[in-house]
């Protein structure tokens, strides 16, 4: 057992931290979020050149072959900077699904492009009726000769507008909530029959509603075994949970620390707010919540990395705890900033909103408490 970062991991952390402090002040982030693209292609190329995009990709496909701990470090650091580029979608969800279930051909075709920054992807797995339940799939994929034909609607697909390819879940068998019968397909975004409705999201990102009308893909578009998509999705979502949890940990660190700074400066009743015992204790509790989330994030990441039997339980416990901690840290950061906490002018509002959406991603705290307790 060894909890210290390797030299490479320390370098990774430093490199992101340097990028964030030089490029990602609040105004720059707002400009990116409000730009037409919603992020910076220049940054994306920087990420590629710094090797971040190659991090989780196997060496055989032009990657660095980093493990889940490396990804954790990446996302914790991105969380501190509130970075808007579509790394989660491309690296963890799209790239993750390919790594887990792709054929040699599929990997060769797409993974090197992810690593060098030339390919972006997104995961279209949710539908409107059951926005927390990725097994509720009505979108259908019917085999017609040498093709699968997809029909249906996918909801809140993050970063779909910037994606070159989508991975789409569709039902090839069974009833709407059957675990079996879901299959995954790699679909180029410009395939005829795909219509997107793009919109901004409250946390400064982009997402889309996607309608699929007789979208025809070749048999080779199938990702993994037919009807077995749920288990692949589950693995991908586990990785997604680890990534956004690390991101939340980074965001919580910024929030509790900047609330300390603010309350030390802001005076009320002739004393800095931080002189009030109730404020001190609240800050202490925020520090504790942050630390517990960070601990469990580290543990769950290492267990899933190792593939131990209790990794899945830890992932559920983690998503629950991160939801609980984020709520406490975020709400109290706003509360202790008083009126200023309500404005878009301070960074804390933006961290707060990102934490709010992280809770909603991949099932919120309630859902994972239920799963954890079985």
């Amino acid at each position: 057992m060894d909890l210290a970062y390797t030299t490479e991991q320390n370098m990774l952390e430093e490199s992101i931290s340097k990028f964030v402090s030089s490029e990602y002040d609040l105004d720059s982030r707002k400009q990116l979020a409000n730009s037409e693209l919603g992020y910076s292609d220049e940054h994306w190329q920087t990420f590629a050149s710094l090797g971040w995009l190659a991090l989780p990709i196997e060496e055989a496909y032009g990657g660095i072959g980093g493990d889940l701990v490396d990804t954790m470090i990446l996302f914790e650091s991105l969380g501190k900077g509130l970075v808007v580029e579509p790394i989660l979608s491309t690296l963890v969800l799209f790239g993750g699904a390919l790594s887990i279930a792709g054929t040699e051909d599929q990997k060769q075709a797409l993974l090197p492009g992810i690593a060098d920054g030339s390919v972006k992807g997104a995961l279209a797995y949710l539908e409107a009726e059951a926005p927390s339940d990725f097994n509720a799939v009505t979108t259908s994929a019917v085999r017609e000769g040498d093709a699968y034909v997809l029909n249906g609607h996918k909801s809140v697909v993050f970063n779909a507008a910037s994606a070159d390819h989508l991975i789409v879940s569709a039902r090839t068998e069974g009833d709407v909530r059957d675990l079996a019968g879901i299959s995954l397909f790699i679909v180029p975004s410009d395939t005829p029959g795909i219509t997107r409705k793009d919109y901004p999201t409250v946390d400064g990102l982009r997402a889309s509603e996607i309608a699929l009308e007789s979208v025809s893909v070749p048999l080779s578009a199938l990702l993994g075994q037919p009807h077995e998509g749920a288990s692949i999705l589950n693995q991908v979502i586990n990785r997604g949970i680890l990534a956004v949890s690390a991101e939340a940990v980074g965001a919580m660190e910024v929030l509790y620390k900047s609330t300390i700074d603010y309350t030390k400066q802001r005076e009320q009743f002739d004393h800095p707010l931080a002189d009030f015992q109730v404020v001190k204790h609240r800050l202490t509790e925020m520090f504790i919540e942050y630390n517990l989330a960070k601990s469990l994030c580290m543990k769950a990441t290492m267990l899933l990395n190792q593939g131990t039997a209790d990794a899945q339980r830890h992932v559920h416990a983690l998503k629950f705890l991160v939801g609980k901690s984020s709520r406490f840290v975020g709400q109290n950061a706003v509360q202790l900033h008083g009126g200023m906490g309500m404005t878009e002018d301070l960074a804390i509002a933006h961290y707060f909103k990102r934490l709010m959406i992280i809770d909603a991603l991949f099932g919120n705290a309630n859902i994972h408490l239920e799963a954890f307790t079985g």
Partner: protein
Amino acid sequence: MDIAFSEEDLAFQQRVRTFIDQNLPTGMALWTKRGEWFKALANEGGWDVPKWPKEFGGPDFTPTQRYIFDLEMGKQSTPPQLPFGVGMLAPILMNYGSEDQRDRFLPGIRDGSVNWCQGYSEPGAGSDLANLKTRAELSDDGSHYLVNGQKIWTTLAHIAHWMFCLTRTSSEGAKQEGITFLLIPMDDPGVEVRPIITLGGSHSVNEVYLTDVKVPVENRVGEEGKGWTYAKGLLAHERSGLAGIQSSVMGLEKAKANARKVKVGQGNLLDLASFKHKVGILEAELLALEFTEMRTLARVASGGDPGPESSILKLKGTEIQQRITELNLEAAGIFAAPWGAEAFGPDFAHGATQSYLGGRATTIYGGASEVQKDVIAKNVLGLS
């Protein structure tokens, strides 16, 4: 002690229900025909100003009638009046204003033709309001004040015709002294309003810059230097109004209905124990809080003061409002994310995010919860 309504009360309840049935505009008309609704309320004998005293045209409800009135209006989500004029300034004018001021301002407040905003908070004076710095200097001839300073968090200043404003006329003595209550027209060239965009992305609060604004002494309410005393009473008033308990009762029912629309596993979100119990805990507390308000009303009815338990209402009421917005947010799931004019997902999802974000203010504005607890500890529990 008896919770049952008397025959008279039941008849009153029926009258209110019938009135709402017959007069409440529905659908979009709720927005376009607000004026008629308030007029109908006025015609019913002061129902447009249910809390005003009889002498100023209020309906003189008994506490039980007041409870029934709020309950039925709350149930049907009838449109509220903006609180600044009717609820906040009017009581001060009634108590401390001159006859002339009442004649000038009360009619416009009542019929909604004149919008008011509240100029209290300043960058250095939030929960610690007495720290305010906006200066008002009396001219040598005693005819007017010259006002300079900055207000912040001024709700709806951008649509207001007038602002009632706390200003500093003296810096001698205790901070609470030397504060004067002025009425300022927003179209004065020295008044500049700058929007503040808040968490929910919406524009409802503002910064207001006051530069050499000339306010005639006739627009001073009460005596110079007594503004703090007047405002303090108003604050207490504002706070009890902020509890919003009847609206929370309705809000909770809606949140439950929303959750029923969201599928989870084989059932809906309200079948999910972790969510259901959160709802249950909230509901139990709300039942208790609702009756705490009733106890307060009953005390006042029997001629007493509102009693120590009334101090709970704002503190706990705003906390409950926030928790209800959180239930809706959770029910929206990932559809909490879409942002902008267009709505996606379940019908309630779009508003859910805005309410949740905007709702963070309820425990900050009007005296932050932490300050409320200080106040209860001091004034109610005698802890200095």
